[in-house]
């Protein structure tokens, strides 16, 4: 199999398999969570809590107060740079948009390529800084296990290979194939790891926010 065949396989059957695992796994996990349900609140509530849940989904984007920010300033800042960077690259890089158009049938405007290049470097740096912090901070080192480092790797690889492919490192078709392969790896492990937080954070925030709103506390 030469590079081009490899690329074709990666873009074809491999991608279909990865997508199937991703979608099936994701739905399965969400079902596993939601089917557990929760008991209704029987105390007399101060408000119903549905809107309160949604308010918390948004409010929690910012730390609750200055002191909370200061105590975790690094992880919040680096975390934001990496998350924003990752989604900007994913959704606003023109070749990605063309790919999505093939898939969904519609497209949207992207960012100029040099801008994406800068954002990619910032994202990579933020990810590296977060990894170093994870290995050095006493709490994070203590909490982290195999999975924490593993999800870091599968998140880092697509950004790195994407950058390398774009700048035609080595052989372009090979690099592109490796990039797509790393994305497939991300998609496959996604439903079985804490990468799931991408889809569960707003469920968590909603539950917490609605319960607190029922008691009259803004969280």
């Amino acid at each position, binding site marked *: 199999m030469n590079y081009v065949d490899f690329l074709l396989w990666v873009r074809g059957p491999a991608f279909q398999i990865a997508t199937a695992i991703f979608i099936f796994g994701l739905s*399965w*996990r969400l079902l*596993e*969570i*939601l*089917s*557990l*349900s*929760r*008991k209704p*609140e*029987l*105390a*007399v509530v*101060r408000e119903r809590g549905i809107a309160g849940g949604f308010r*918390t*989904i948004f409010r*929690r984007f910012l*730390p*609750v*107060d200055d*002191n*909370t920010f200061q*105590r*975790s300033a690094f*992880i*919040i800042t680096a*975390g934001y740079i990496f998350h924003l960077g990752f989604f900007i690259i994913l959704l606003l890089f023109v070749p990605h948009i063309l790919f999505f158009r093939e898939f969904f049938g519609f497209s949207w405007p992207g960012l100029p390529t040099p801008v994406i290049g800068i954002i990619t470097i910032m994202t990579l740096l933020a990810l590296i800084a977060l990894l170093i912090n994870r290995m050095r*901070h*006493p*709490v*994070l*080192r*203590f*909490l*982290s296990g195999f999975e*924490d480092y593993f999800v870091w790797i599968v998140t880092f690889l697509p950004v790195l290979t994407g950058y390398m492919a774009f700048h035609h490192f080595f052989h372009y078709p090979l690099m592109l194939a490796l990039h797509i392969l790393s994305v497939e790896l991300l998609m496959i492990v996604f439903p*079985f790891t*804490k990468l*799931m*937080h991408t889809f*569960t*954070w*707003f*469920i*968590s*925030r*909603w*539950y*917490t*926010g609605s*319960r*607190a709103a029922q*008691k*009259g*506390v*803004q*969280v």
Partner: protein
Amino acid sequence: MSAASFERGYNAFKEQIDAPIASYFSSCIHCGMCAQACLFYTETGEPKYTPIYKLEPMRKIWEQEYTLFGKLKVLLGISQKLTDAELAEWQELIYGSCTLCGRCSMVCPVGNDLVYMIHKAREGMAAAGHAPHSLIEGNQRAINIGSATGVGLPTLQAQIKNIERDTGIKIPIDVPGVEYMALISAIEILNYPEYLSSLAKIMKHVGKTWTLSSKGFEATNAGIQIGVSDIAKELLMRIVNEAEELGVSTVISPECGHAYMVIRWEGPNLIARPFNFKVQHIVELLDEWREQGQLETEGFEKARLTFHDPCQLARRGGVIEQPRKLLNMVANQLVEMEDRGKMNWCCGAGGGLAAQEESEALRLKAFNRKRTQLKTLKVSQLVTACAHCREHLEEGLENNDMKMSVVGLTEMVVKHLVDKNET
């Protein structure tokens, strides 16, 4: 209640896991921010006190019982089943170093309500036989004598006599058909009888009918603290039965954050039906009367003072503005701590920690947080609305040679009430 065993504990853990908990575990990205919100971590620097780590046994059970992948991991030998030894090891974390203050739940970026989980984890721990002895004994005393500290009706009756003699006001007991039924916590009967006498004076001031109940006077609930819902239910039903029998329209939670959380919020869920009476914390009630213009006060406190928000009243109960409005009525030198209201730091003794001798050193170390908070304020008086906070604050201040008096809010308001008989 059947005897504690690992199997019972394991099943109790399983039963506690609901959709929020599954979502919380799925969402945690080990960012460590919750550690920074917990006074046991900030004051010791020990990573094991990180809130999410306290839930590791529960996380394991969730993963292995409620996720396909987790089951697969066990099958393939990648992950090991939870053991009784692990639970024993976690007793120190779930009971010995968590006051259920809920501060961690305020900071988690994915929105995990950590204290909700820790509270539920106690159900599993108690059923597995890994609750501290002091709390188990407290539960036995609560069931047999009437309160976890062993204060029973005779002590209350003696205290009532004293108060009636001192104030000249009759304390009604077991009177049917009145508007309010007041509860009291054992610590107030023993150490702070000012609360009951203040209550009597206020009731007279606003001209409301009220009563205590000889069968359901204790407001705290040892069963909730330890996490045994059978006991919690039994203790709670003493209050519910009495309130319904006497036909009162409102039950008043005393100055105790825990009691308010139990009766106001957990109560109906515990007995699986709504109450047919209202539950109000005394501070909520006082503020309501203030707003209606029923509290006539005069003069202001001379001391520069601050207010300590009891966690269960403020952060977990939603009573945040009321105490401040009341304070402003009787004090003009109120200064606030930097982290306050829903972000106040726990005194360090909630969640049954005060009853565990083995946690005493840690509890006093955690008090450093309060000391740091108070240091810059230059106040000579600390007001709160929870007798349990009050006791621990007094202990902590004394331990740190800080000269500051601790007062209950109700008592402070009552000091300023205008005597209507004289005018």
